[in-house]
């Protein structure tokens, strides 16, 4: 059974593995950090959030300061889908952000119908005009 855990990651409960939600590439044990199965790239933040104001003239430009902030991009080694973006001070250890009790997850899903796609939640329904 597959659990759509994030927009980029699924868990195969039978195999207890993380998978890329884009291509199904296996990313390692679901009991471990999914990031271990991904590739990482350190980006200078101004490569993403480019200066709006002239960086030659101004100290503050709308671009983050590279001494304060780096952007780590995690992508699937197979299809290149961006799975997670992490903003960190330079050299700060990346977070083991999703750390699950897989046994509890299996018990929980044993009582549930498998899903063929992620459940997005209720549709927004605009209230009727009342005037």
């Amino acid at each position, binding site marked *: 059974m597959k659990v*759509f855990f994030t927009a980029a990651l699924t868990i195969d409960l039978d195999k207890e593995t993380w998978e890329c939600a884009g291509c199904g590439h296996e990313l390692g044990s679901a009991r471990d950090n999914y990031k271990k199965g991904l590739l990482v790239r350190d980006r200078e933040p101004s490569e993403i959030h480019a200066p709006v104001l002239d960086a030659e003239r101004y100290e503050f430009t709308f671009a983050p*300061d590279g*001494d304060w902030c780096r952007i780590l991009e995690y992508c699937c080694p197979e299809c290149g889908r961006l799975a997670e973006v992490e903003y960190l001070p330079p050299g700060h250890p*990346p977070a083991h*952000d999703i*750390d699950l009790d897989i046994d509890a997850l299996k018990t929980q899903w044993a009582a549930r119908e498998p899903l063929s796609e992620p459940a997005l939640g209720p549709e927004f329904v605009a209230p009727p005009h009342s005037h």
Partner: protein
Amino acid sequence: MGDDMDITGAASGAVDAFLSETNLYLAPDPVIMNNHGLEPRTAYEDECISKESDPVRLEIVRERILAGVNESFEMLENMGAAPGAKWGDCVSAVYTESGDLSLASSGGVVIFCNLVQYPIKFIRKYWSKDKTVGINEGDVFIVNDARYGQAHNTDQSMMMPVFHEGKIVAWAGATVHEGENGAIEPGGMPSLAEQIWDEGLKMSPFKVAENYTLRRDLVTFLQNSVREPKLQYADMKVKMYVCRRIETRIHEAIAEYGVEAVVAALRMNLEDTDAEVRRRLKEWPDGTVRHSWWTDGTLRENVQIKINLELTKKGDELTFDYRGSSPEFTNRSNNSLDITVKGMLAQLFLTFIWPDIPRNQGVLAPVNFIFDNPSVLKPGFGTPSAQSMMTVFTAWSAGQVATMKFLYSNPHKYTRVLAPWFNMINTFLFGGLTQHGEMVGNVCADINGMGGGALADRDGEHGCAPIFATMSDIGEQEFIEEEVPFIQIVSKKMMKDNQGFGRQRGGMGYQMVLAMRDSDAFGFMLTAMGAKFPNIPGLFGGYGCPTYPLARIRGVNVFEILKNDPASFRYSIEELMNERPFPDAQYSTHPMTLGYTLAQRGELYMIAQGTGGGFGDPLERAPADVMRDMDEGLISDDVAWRIYRVVYNKETLHVDEAATAKARDEARRERIAKSKPFDAFCKEWVKDKPSGKVPYFGSWDDKTMVHAGDPDKLHPAGQVVPPVVMAHPLQVKIDKLEAELAECRKSGNR
């Protein structure tokens, strides 16, 4: 002899009574302040519930009272004098006899009323038995000191007991972000506050009205303590009559359904909410989600401040563990009380996760919190916290990210998973003499224009609402300009490329270009973080917001330019700052942390509201959506290519689908080629301490040890000795200049 004194029974009671009667100072009571959960059911509530337990009937009573509360909220918004009241930064609510928040108005700021439980409990515990105070029908109490239970001192709450046949059966409450409170800077949110006594009014809960009549001696004292005496009086009257309207509606409900039904409805509303939240939490996966974020200043200096969150869900309980966050700053105002963090997180659940749950404090009953004590999220009693938003909003956003990672896999949701909402108060505070000769000090309604986060299948809403009040308003600019002596020459205009990129993009922030016009004494201040380190991330491959500076153009009077040479004016921050159309002016950028500064007529102050975070990989954004943003002027050609990799005709915006698919494939291959496996990457990337280029506060890789500015020195969390005391920024500047001068003199003597 020689044994320890053993005081038991009546003697023990006498000692307790003596101590309680001779208490020299009734500070906030830790027994009250450390309990965010529900009070135990009282014997009377038990009796009422045994008589009235039909859920349908109780729901009718609940809705009846809620309609009255919503009516009172309309009164508050329409009659309130403070900008905060006019634009929705207010709330009204009903509390149980014990003080628990049972019914908040459908609009308004949940955190405000969530925190009013504490002063009501203080009033019950201390003033009910005190012969000099007492609680009688027609009494109204007031509070603004956050340490007794407010989000921050700029808010003022009034509370009224609701009696039935001589007995209190409920409480009514109304809260407004009043703004001005007599602090060291106008507007009620002083970033210059170095001590709690710089923060202005410190109203512990006290009785301000008897027999439904405000005591003018006390009102005059309060008016005498703030810069807006008329506003102080006007809004006290408004809040009192809002409480009276709630009281009237409760009395009517009692007359129709009986007091037992009303008391049972208020109590069961809490218990049912607690039970339903526990049921919903059981649907979440068990585990821990970790998310850290950093703010980049204290409002006085740029430093890196960590907010560390481990959110653990097990069974039907949730635990927010903020240990490892920064130590407190003992002479800065950017610390947040723990009750403020809890109240904001109630807002997260009640508006962003379970908007269908009744708005009461039962939502937090299954939630636990852990903080280092003291720390920036649980400061000491004497530590300033007037600018608590600087850390509480970051703590809230960390909670938003972490909860969304728990929510996405749930087969049954009550609303949709959302990338982070923008979270910082990118707005102007102002103060001085108006064109009408009135002294004012307050905040622009643009505080409410935060960009919404993207959803899995929908872009975020532009300039939508603040994280603390999803149904507030950004106001009518022309209306505002009738009251204050400055205009927004560029107002509510989306700022190009100010976007949280993603498969779905965040709702964008607009730019504001202000100039003061009609006053001899008027100034502005700014109190926002995020000029060095962005305020929010994206979600699941989406990016966060950029950073936001203050841009200024001095030495110019734009009103003369608009009169004599209007064609030279430019209508965006980017053009004004990069093209420099006014030759003799001085152009500069700063962090968005301006201390109160008197403005010259016609000089420009410019900022932008923030964007919500993006959701998913930007390379998967539909090219048509990218072109729609292009067509609407929201993004540049640079972003359309650099971030979204769309190939199109720049004249017609016609997309070349094949070329776009090819370009995106190449971009993915480039990603893979330039990336490294995680473990290999970490070997090179991870350092054992902060770089030292930036003063760093908080844990690094071990949440039990924290830095206090020095990368080489660690302290046990909650035990930073000596406590963090920041130097006065002007002194830092003087010391630097004196050192340079000494060096120059030394060189000159050689």
